[in-house]
Each structure stands twice: as C-alpha cells, then as structure tokens.
C-alpha cells in the first residue's frame, strides 16, 4: 500500500525522532529545563540531578540553568534557595511501548492516543538549624548593610516601588524529591462557530507516589483543569487551507505564480483519523491542489 493511496501528500513523524529532538533541545538549551537560585547556580553540586549538557554549552559559556529569585518567606526579606528541574520529557504514540503507564491511567494505551511522561526533580535548601538559632541576627545585619537600597534622586518619580531583593538564606544541600507525572490524550477535530479546528485533549493525568492521596488528587485535578480549561483550548489550530507559491523566486520565468494549496483531508471511511496516532507515529493526510 502506498502512503498516498488516500491523500495527495502524506507526512509522518515517529516518536523516537520526536524524543530525540526533545533530548537535543534539553542538552543544547538546558536553561529551558533547569531553574535554580543564584547560590545553587554557583554550586551546581547542590542540584537534585546533574545536568547533562552538549559540550558546546561549556565551550560557549552558555548557562546550565535559569537563575530565579529565592522562594520568599512571607513577612521577611529572606527567602530560601531552591531548584526545579524537568529531567525527562518523553512522548509515546500508540501503541504504548516507550514507557509503562501507571495503573491509574488504565494501560495499555488506547488506539489513537498518545502518552507523555514528565520527570521533575526539585528541592528547597533549608538553612541549618544552628544558623537560624544562633547566626541569624549577625547574618541579617551583614546582608542588610551589603544589600542597602540605592539612594534615590529627589527628582526621580517611580510609579512602581523598586523591588526589594530577596536575601537567600545559606544552605549546604537541597532537600530533593523527584516526581513522575503521566498524561494521556490525543488530537481531535472539532467545529467552533462553523470552523473546523484541530484540538489537543487530555484523558487523564497521574502523579506517581505523591502522598497523601488527597494532595495527589487535588494536584491532578488542578493541573487537569488548568490544561483543559486554560492551556489546551489555546493550542487548538484552525484547520484552514494555506497556499504556497512554488515559483516565487523565479518571477522572470513564471510571471503567473504556481501555487499549491494544502489542506487537511476530510474524515472519511478511507481516512478515519486525520491526524492519526498509530504505529508509533503521528500521521497527517493532506490534500493538495495546484492552482
């Protein structure tokens, strides 16, 4: 059977290729996946998981992580150091064979579905108890004197008050934990206001081994609602035809443009799913009209 028996143009992308692309991005742009305070950035051995980067990152002196403010302690000018790392992101197109699904998501993966696995490691750096009990006062005086606010000009008018820097409390290690989260879902074609859209959807979310169960359920519910109501509707794509001028660069030879108009093949008995999630691939069946 030919790829284009039921369409003009066929395109497919295998899950292995997708996962390799994610891995290349993770190694070449680690600051998208790793977040930590400046103190942790200076002492990367504090991180919950060592960051595996492409050699070019060190050659070009690119950051391994994005520096963020310490986690504020409400009512104080202090905060605690922390790190959050997305250590794994994998996709698995039906049939599920890249990673096992937790029983809560009812494996095996159903037809025309994809699964996503996320691994997140994070930790907060708690200052030593001795430090809080005995050294806090001297630390506070020292930090307040070195982090004094710059003098403001009399003529300087600022509508927003200047942000007070959060002073990170010192730490020797982060209290790290890692969580695996899974989501299953797919893509469907829906009609809004008479126009057809391609919309991603979520069937279920599972955060593994988070205790107590109420916390896990609450988090899963909250993340699910955030995805279903907030994020995924914004990711829906209007399925409209678009035109490509193939002779754009040669107007002297082709005074009349040669356009190819591309649109999604309509759902039919021969194309029951478009896009289709099957054979470990995401497949698209495209109609092409030359005008």
């Amino acid at each position, binding site marked *: 059977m030919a790829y284009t028996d039921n369409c003009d143009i066929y395109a497919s992308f295998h899950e292995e290729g997708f996962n390799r692309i994610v891995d290349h991005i993770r190694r070449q742009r680690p600051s998208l996946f790793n977040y930590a305070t400046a103190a942790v950035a200076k002492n990367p051995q504090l991180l919950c998981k060592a960051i595996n980067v492409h050699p070019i990152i060190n050659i070009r002196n690119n950051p391994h992580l994005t*520096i963020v403010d310490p986690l504020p302690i409400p009512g104080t000018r202090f905060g605690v150091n922390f790190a959050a790392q997305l250590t794994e992101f994998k996709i698995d197109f039906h049939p599920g064979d890249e990673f096992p699904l937790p029983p809560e998501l009812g494996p095996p993966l159903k037809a025309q579905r994809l699964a996503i696995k996320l691994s997140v490691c994070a930790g907060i750096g708690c200052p030593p108890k001795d430090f809080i009990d005995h050294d806090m006062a001297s630390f506070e005086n020292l930090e307040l004197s070195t982090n004094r606010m710059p003098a403001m000009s009399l003529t300087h008018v600022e509508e927003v008050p200047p942000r007070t820097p959060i002073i990170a409390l010192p730490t020797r290690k982060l209290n790290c934990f890692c969580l695996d989260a899974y989501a299953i879902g797919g893509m469907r074609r829906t009609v809004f206001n008479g126009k057809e859209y391609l919309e991603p959807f979520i069937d279920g979310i599972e955060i593994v081994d988070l205790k107590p169960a109420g916390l896990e359920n609450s988090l899963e519910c909250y993340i699910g609602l955030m995805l279903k109501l907030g994020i995924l509707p914004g990711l829906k794509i209007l399925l409209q035809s678009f035109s490509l001028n193939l002779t754009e660069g040669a107007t002297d030879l082709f005074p009349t443009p*040669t356009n190819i108009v591309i649109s999604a093949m309509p759902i039919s008995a021969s194309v029951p799913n478009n896009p289709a999630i099957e054979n470990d691939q995401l497949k698209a069946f495209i109609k092409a009209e030359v005008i």
Partner: protein
Amino acid sequence: MAHLTIGASENTFKALFEKIRDNFHFANSDSGDFGPFSAGYVLEAHLEGGTIDLRADNTVQIKELDIKWDRLDLSLGIDIPEICVGGFCIIPNIFTGGCLVRAPRVCIFSADPDISFTLPLGGIITSEISVTGSLVTKYNIKPARPAGMNDWDAQDMDPSLANHWQLFIDPQFLDVDLFDIADIVGDLLDNAINFAVDNLLGFLPGWARDLIKAILGAFVDVIRAILDIGDDLQEWISDLLNVSFGITDFILQVIADDLASKFPLVEIEDPFPVLEAAANPNPGVPSMLIPVKIPIRDLKVFNNDREMILEANVG
C-alpha cells in the same frame, strides 16, 4: 522505520508539472560585436505538451515536452572594411604646396555593420525535450572547514562553513530535438488548414468549419505521429541503454552531469537549526544563547511508480 516520512502522489506531481509547464514563459535578448561580425538574438518561448511519469525503477521521466519558440529572431551582421576611392589631387598648388582641385572621394562599406539580416523563426520552430533522471541526495562538507571545527563555529564563519544535505537532479539520459520536425510540420499543416478552411469555406457556419478542422486535425495528428517515430525509437533505445545519442544530446548530457553535481535544487543545513539564538535569561555574558541544532541523518529521496518519498532520521 524512518523518523520523518513525507510522500507525494504521482497525481500531485502530474498536476504540478502541468501547471508549471503552462505558467512557464521565457524571454531574453542579447547581442555581441566580434570585430568584423556581430550577432544578436531575441527569444521568447513557452512550453506545451509533454508528460511526467514516476517509474518503478526510482526514476522520473519527462517525455516530449515541447518548447514553442514564439519569437526566435537571429540577427547576423558583417562589417566589411571601408574602401575609399578618389580624393587624389588633380591640380596641385605650386605656390603653397597644397591642392587646388581634388578628385571626388567615394567610400563604400562605411556603415557598421554593412550587411545585416534577421532570420525570424518565431512561430515556426518547435524544440522537444525528453529526460529521465532521479533525485539524489549528497552530503556536502565544505573543503575549507578545518577538521574538528564544531557546527556552531562553522555556521558563524563568513561565508558559512556549515555542512549541508543537497538534493540534485541526476539526469540519466537526455534527448533534445532542437528542431522537432514532427511538430514543426504539424503546426504548419494546422495553420494551413485553419487558413484554408476559414478563407475558402468561410460561407459555412462556425460549427461546420470547426467540424472540418477537427477531422483534418486528426489527420495532422497521424502525420505528427508518423514523423515522430524515428525520434521515439531513438528515445526508446536511449532510455533502454541509458545513453544519449547525437552530438547535441551528448554535449547536453555532459552539461547536465556537471549541473547534477554542482547545482543542488535544495540545500538543508546539517545540523538543522530548530531554535534560533535567544537572549541569555541570566545577567552577564554571553548575551545570547547558541541556536539549537538537530542533526539530520540518512536523508534520502526516492520514488516508485505511485509516489515520491522523502525519508530522514534525527541523529
């Protein structure tokens, strides 16, 4: 299984071929002076006919594509060296040493060029091209790139020393009939029939004249086919043996082979940038992060008799 697969049907290629053929229009003119000779041309052409066929042996055949020369004016000029007679002194001035009366001086061939003519071949001549070839991919490493240079440094060089995947047309045989006798005779017959029917049978209603033209047109098609047999036979043998016959075809084949190795249709940078350089989220240097690049492996393009397929892997 390849990570990326893209297939395009033969019908899509046929529709594309027909539209590109119909939209193609070529016009050019030039002239040159080569001392005693000058030459010039004015060209205008469009394409007609022809078929495209994806074949099971991983080749694509474009057959009998006609180049219709709407205007083909070839000019030649000859500049003959000027010849002058007369002008000699008949009565010299013995006092001043000058000349009182001179013979009249006559020069010929003073113009440049002295003789010129234009051969208007537009509307008469049809040329025909048949080509069979395949698409091939090659991996290009710039010779100037030092061994061990990383891909980011290579891209930053001016000019860039980045590696590329290149897509070439590899013509396996090429047949060009500069004068497609069958079509030239056919067109002349068509024009003669149209002229005769419109002028001699002008009293008939339009539908009757169209009917006569259609009947005679079928007769002209038969003549075209008969006159084309020799060329078809040559193309068939060429196709069979993958050898181009004729001195013109041989020269064009050499040029085509040269083009097939030096002028790619498409170039894809490898590794391919998927995320552009972005601002460093942290204060300090560097101000920009490197672009994210994805290595492309095993890129290949091939076809069977139903579709053209591109496959590639992510390295």
